[in-house]
């Protein structure tokens, strides 16, 4: 009896919990923002300093290395994370049709949930696997400079935060109840990869901090 009472209370609390976003204000329709292709970055290569911080029930962890994003001649993309001494943690690959595979991965990283989470992060960043058209454009909190462009995903949806001068400032992935992943991005033209990205995994409790390394930095 007590169990059912607690269960009911939990259900009521869950039902009353705030949705991920309050009612959003419909933005003035901007035709080009509707197309995912318009939002997609064009790049050949980007090298990032990558720092990962996280927490589990038992302990905190910290990891660092270099993350290389490279487009090949046949329009495939590799995302490679390696430690400072050059040892590869993982090598992810998307073919020209966006089909994903793991080329190489260290046993410690080879967990299905982790691979799927990272795959989704990079796909959101590169605007891969999005439907052709957005299903909404909104303003949030009275900020009319930023348009939240919404694309439906197989689970939940994603917002791309685009300013009036067509700079990307954030990416937010959520379901109806909660935000799952939030990308904080240094304002970046839509067609470029950002200089600085902080990816916060709100459920999985870890953060990826990516800072672009200039091409000639080691010369």
């Amino acid at each position, binding site marked *: 009896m007590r169990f059912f009472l607690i269960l009911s209370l939990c259900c009521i609390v869950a039902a009353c919990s705030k949705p991920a976003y309050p009612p959003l204000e419909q933005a003035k329709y901007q035709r080009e923002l509707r197309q995912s292709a318009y939002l997609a970055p064009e790049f050949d290569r980007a090298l990032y300093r990558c720092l990962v911080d996280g927490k589990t029930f038992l302990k905190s962890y910290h990891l660092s290395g270099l993350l290389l994003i490279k487009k090949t001649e046949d329009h495939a993309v590799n995302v490679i994370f390696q430690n400072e001494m050059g040892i*590869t943690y993982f090598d992810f690959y998307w073919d020209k049709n966006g089909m994903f595979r793991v080329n190489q991965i*260290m046993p410690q990283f080879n967990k299905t949930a982790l691979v799927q989470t990272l795959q989704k992060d990079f796909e959101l960043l590169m605007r891969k696997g999005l439907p052709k058209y957005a299903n909404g454009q909104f303003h949030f909190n009275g900020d009319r400079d930023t348009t939240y462009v919404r694309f439906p995903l197989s689970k939940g949806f994603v917002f791309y935060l685009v300013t009036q001068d067509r700079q990307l400032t954030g990416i937010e992935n959520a379901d109806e109840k909660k935000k799952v992943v939030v990308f904080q991005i240094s304002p970046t033209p839509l067609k470029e990869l950002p200089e600085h990205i902080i990816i916060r995994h709100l459920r999985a409790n870890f953060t990826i901090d990516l800072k672009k390394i200039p091409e000639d930095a080691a010369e």
Partner: protein
Amino acid sequence: MPVLHKISILLFSLNVCFPFMLSAQTGFVPVKDMTQMKAELIKNNQATQTVSSNFSQTKSMKMLNEKVVSKGLFYYKKNNRIRIEYTSPFQYLLIMNGGNIIVQDEHKTNKVNTRNSKSLQSANRIMMDCMTGNVFSNKDFEVQCLAGQGKYLLQLTPVAASMKNLFSRIDIYLEQSDYSVSRLTLHEAGGDYTVMDFTNRKKNISLSDALFSNP
């Protein structure tokens, strides 16, 4: 002459000649007197109190035709103390002091859990082994010693499963003149490799203990 006989002779010739062909290609041949080489290595390392050098590291990704270059400073001090300081294109410090590994990046300083960082542990163990002359006693690897071009080339092939996951082979180049490490190449199983070239090498200069303590 029967065809089978001809094939046998050809195979025999290839078997006999191939190692020499390979050596001629790379310019390195197997060392005949390993005992003397090992003794010289140990003797030299016993006389080495400190080492200081610059390094340039190039990671080559075979499939992508891509190279990632980084640079830094390397220090060794007896006993068992190593400092690897990446200065470009990122800041990263790694100190190995006895059994402790400390790393410092832009965010924080950490003691590394070596159970989770086999690659770091093994790369540093190898460097330490080179400095102390213990490279032949590392049970994780089978060591082959070649010589040529004024250098010794120690080829370390992993025996332990944990090492096989990380490396297909490690090459250590030692200068024959003073047994200092001039190059370290880490070959990964997938075909990628990382080359560390050590330049401006100085032995037995004064190095402060503070270089090897918690920053």
